[in-house]
């Protein structure tokens, strides 16, 4: 959450609630409702580390609000963020360990594990399809986020299929 907040502040100062709205507008229904409390906590931390600075604005009949702006070191941190490439996605390691260890325990069947996992993925895939259908078709960022999640799941499902092919041959 830290760097996306810095990135949202790059275009100009804003207060916490505006940032929450910006995030929701950008990501649409694809993004789970953002907890505004979490945003305030993160902003507090960013301020402490000198990446942003806040200014209290007095408001009539309402509590003061704090407007945050990006500092030079915040700008630098943001530049460094764009400079780095992101980590590769990881194989579903917990499932893999279950699959690898099942035969030694005698407590679970590998094919049954695969079938169960596949069901879960397919149900999630279905819910993602529904989400994509419900989301504004013109919100490209949101649609791309959902499509990314679907393609990852597709890869996981393909891999389950490979596991099943290999392990069924052994049976």
């Amino acid at each position, binding site marked *: 959450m830290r760097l996306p907040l810095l990135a949202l502040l790059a275009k100009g100062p804003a207060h916490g609630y505006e940032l929450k709205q910006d995030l929701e507008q950008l*990501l649409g229904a694809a993004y789970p409702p953002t907890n505004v409390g979490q945003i305030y906590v993160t902003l507090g931390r960013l301020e402490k580390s000198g990446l942003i600075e806040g200014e209290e604005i007095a408001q009539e009949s309402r509590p003061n609000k704090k407007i945050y702006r990006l500092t030079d070191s915040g700008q630098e941190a943001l530049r460094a963020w764009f400079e780095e490439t992101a980590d590769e996605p990881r194989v579903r390691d917990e499932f893999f360990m279950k699959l690898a260890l099942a035969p030694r325990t005698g407590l679970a069947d590998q094919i049954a594990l695969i079938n169960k996992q*596949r069901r879960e*993925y*397919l149900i999630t895939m279905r819910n*993602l399809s529904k989400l994509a259908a419900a989301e504004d078709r013109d919100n490209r960022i949101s649609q791309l986020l959902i499509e990314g999640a679907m393609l990852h799941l*597709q890869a996981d499902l393909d891999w389950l299929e490979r596991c*099943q092919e290999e392990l069924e041959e052994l049976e």
Partner: protein
Amino acid sequence: MSDPADDSIRTGADDSVRPDTGSPLLRAEGLVKTHHGEGAPAHAVRGVDLSVRHGEFVAVTGPSGAGKSTLLHLLGGLQRPDSGSLWLDGECTDAYSEARWAVERRRRIGIVFQFFNLVSNLTVADNVELPALLAGTSARQARAERETLLAELGLENKARSMPGELSGGEQQRVALARALVNQPRLLLADEPAGSLDSKGTREVMRLLSRFHQRGQTIVLVTHDARLASAADRAISFFDGRIADDAELDRAPRRGTGLSGVLELKG
């Protein structure tokens, strides 16, 4: 601890957990099909029991070579099983002749294929109207049906085009219109997005979902999990057999729902 998900597991042979809504639209018992080509015989379908209710949308998924297309061909009478029986709307089809199957494929079963199989020297309009005319629909009625379907599929401006002038996605929509023109009870789709790009795939998915919502019964064969996820039931087909059969139309098991797969870390 018992997993509530297990309540939704069904094997093709087990009808007891299904609400009884009259006879299923499609029922298969003990279907077997072996291909004898060059080399060793290929056991494409090895004892399949399956039941599809009216209004159900079933996806059959599995690796290529698992026999899922052969299964679909058996369900549509395009190939005949070596053994086993098939009921359509409660009626046993074992004694059907080729001619009878051809009639069924015009009236009660619509099929779409991976490579569209449109008649290349007929216009889009004629491709769609032809099965209606063959089924004995009047020319006027056939034209009306065709106009409705093409409009529905966003192809009203393509009626006079030849199939070769259309994109793959458009050709598949024409094929879908042709398959649905006689309002078949059952729509069979064999890798309908297999030769389409990602956008075309989504389009096919959207259309299948839409027709399903209006009550169309669909059996879809695909290796694409995204496409399969449009169905409300998924059958995993491995090595000629049903390995798993699961309802998809329920909430994910974990409370986190979708947020886990959509989680963004800053």
